[in-house]
């Protein structure tokens, strides 16, 4: 069963701003990165998944349920960590997380136990009886995660969980999220505007821009089969580029090198033959792995054309 699926999902705010436009996607369980620039529609997407916002048109299903008509059922099985500060400074962390557990339907004693457990899993076991106001930013982020985790959800929605953290805090938070996704067996949607950050921990990525879907795929499939060849010749780079383009290849200049998309094994031969025909001194010919970021950059260029 798909974790999340949408069909032509569109959300237009009363002011006329379209935050999501004709978004169709199907996401399998796992750790999912939802990436896009600020204002791309990530937060709107999260709120729509929670049933807090009603889509203007289109269909949406989360954990096989419809968040619009069956909101409480969805919200009982989802944990949400908002982007902004949302903690009462004058409350003790353990009590706050317990209260939030009860608000999701846990009985009193269970809520207390699971609150302690959740705080232990995020690394705040020793400090759990301190007031939240005295916590550092990193610790507050952990409390926010703990309150989303306390009721053992099937899906966690994390909105910019690394916001405001220093590099060490970021790494710790990301590995914690990765653990939740793998060891705890809870699916996670991580929102971020930093692709490099989430690509390390995600199974699949969904990229949106301007409310439109840029790309949604599993990480492996993104890096597979779309490797490029980098060719460097001592002279005649322009000639070679022209010749290769005539052969029907997509050629891109990258500094002194030329990048050619490797579609099949013939590409190698084709390039070698062309270089030989032009009698150019070949300096380097090697395969390069695309970083996910570059793929998105290409998609974005394509989308703007």
């Amino acid at each position, binding site marked *: 069963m798909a974790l999340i699926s949408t069909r032509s999902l569109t959300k237009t705010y009363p002011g006329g701003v379209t935050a999501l436009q004709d978004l169709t996607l199907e996401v399998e369980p796992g750790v999912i990165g939802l990436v896009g620039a600020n204002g791309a529609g990530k937060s709107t997407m999260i709120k729509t998944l929670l049933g807090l916002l009603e889509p203007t048109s289109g269909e949406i299903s989360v954990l096989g349920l419809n968040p619009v008509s069956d909101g409480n059922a969805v919200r009982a099985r989802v944990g949400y960590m908002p982007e902004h500060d949302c903690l009462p400074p004058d409350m003790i962390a353990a009590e706050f997380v317990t209260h*939030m557990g009860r608000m999701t339907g846990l009985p009193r004693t269970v809520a207390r136990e699971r609150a302690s457990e959740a705080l232990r899993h995020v690394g705040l076991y020793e400090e759990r009886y301190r007031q939240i106001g005295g916590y550092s930013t990193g610790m507050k982020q952990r409390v926010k995660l703990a309150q989303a985790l306390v009721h053992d959800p099937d899906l966690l929605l994390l909105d910019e969980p690394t916001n405001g953290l220093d590099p060490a805090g970021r790494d710790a938070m990301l590995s914690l999220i990765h653990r939740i996704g793998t060891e705890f067996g809870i699916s996670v949607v991580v929102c971020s505007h930093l692709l490099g950050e989430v690509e390390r921990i995600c199974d699949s990525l969904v990229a949106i821009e301007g409310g439109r879907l840029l790309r949604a795929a599993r990480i492996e499939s993104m890096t597979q089969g779309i490797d490029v060849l980098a060719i460097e010749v001592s002279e005649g780079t322009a000639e070679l580029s022209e010749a290769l383009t005539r052969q029907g290849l997509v050629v891109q200049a990258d500094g002194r090198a030329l990048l050619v998309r490797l579609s099949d094994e013939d590409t190698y031969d084709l390039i070698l033959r062309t270089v030989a025909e032009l009698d150019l001194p070949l300096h380097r010919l090697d395969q390069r792995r695309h970083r996910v970021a570059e793929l998105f950059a290409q998609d974005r260029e394509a989308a703007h054309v």
Partner: protein
Amino acid sequence: MSEQSMIHDIGYQRYQGQRLGPRSIFGALYVHGLRAAFGLGRSAKAKIFPWIAVGLIGVIALVIAIARSQGSDDVGYADLPSIASVVVLVFLAIVAPELVSRDLRNNLLPLYFARPVSRAAYAGAKLLSVVSAIWLMMAGPQTLIFAASAFGQGDVFGELRGLLGGWLVAAVYAFVFGGLGVLIASLASRRAFAAGAIAAVFLVTLPVAGVLMSLGNKTLESLAPLASPTMLPEGVREALFPADNMPIGNYGPVYLAAGVLVPALCALQLILRYKKVSL
């Protein structure tokens, strides 16, 4: 502990047990609010002001109990709310912002509404918490008076009837004060502003109604207390238990209707306010 004790990392445990429905969640939110109103389960600082107010009304109740034990029947159970209305008002100005404005200020609403807590349930639970807290702070001391009087004299049934009437009047006060207080507090995210606004609405309307009453027009005199939430409950009391405390004339039913409508409209307005809140 044995020497061989060691820490076992049992890893993450999924929860397969019982999950309670929206009604239990509503109950938990209500109890949480009621406890928070008296600072229970909170820091010592949060307990100071509510308990000062409770202490003051306790002193007033003590004075009434002593007066009654001396044979004075001038002050009854139903008089406590109006005698202590300023203290009740102070309590309201502390509790309503504590329960409502604090959540707004700390951005807690997204956490609630991302759970199986509907906006109406949230508004309703908060309102009921405040109303109950106010009622308890009047009904408790009334019960103290009853305990003192019933043991002192012996007309237990007469005293009991008086106590029940007093509880009813306290409930009228609680609903009018609580309804309006929570609604005002829900519009301000800063506690101090909310408290000030509550005090302003209740205290500014009081002299306005007073001036209208003294203009000499009989009808105006009977209807003016409707304009002040501080006087309205006393008018309802007059309609329920006529005792010539307030000149409401033949407008008893109007006061009864207002006593029901004002809290109901406040509750409705409160739900609408939370329906509109953006996350």
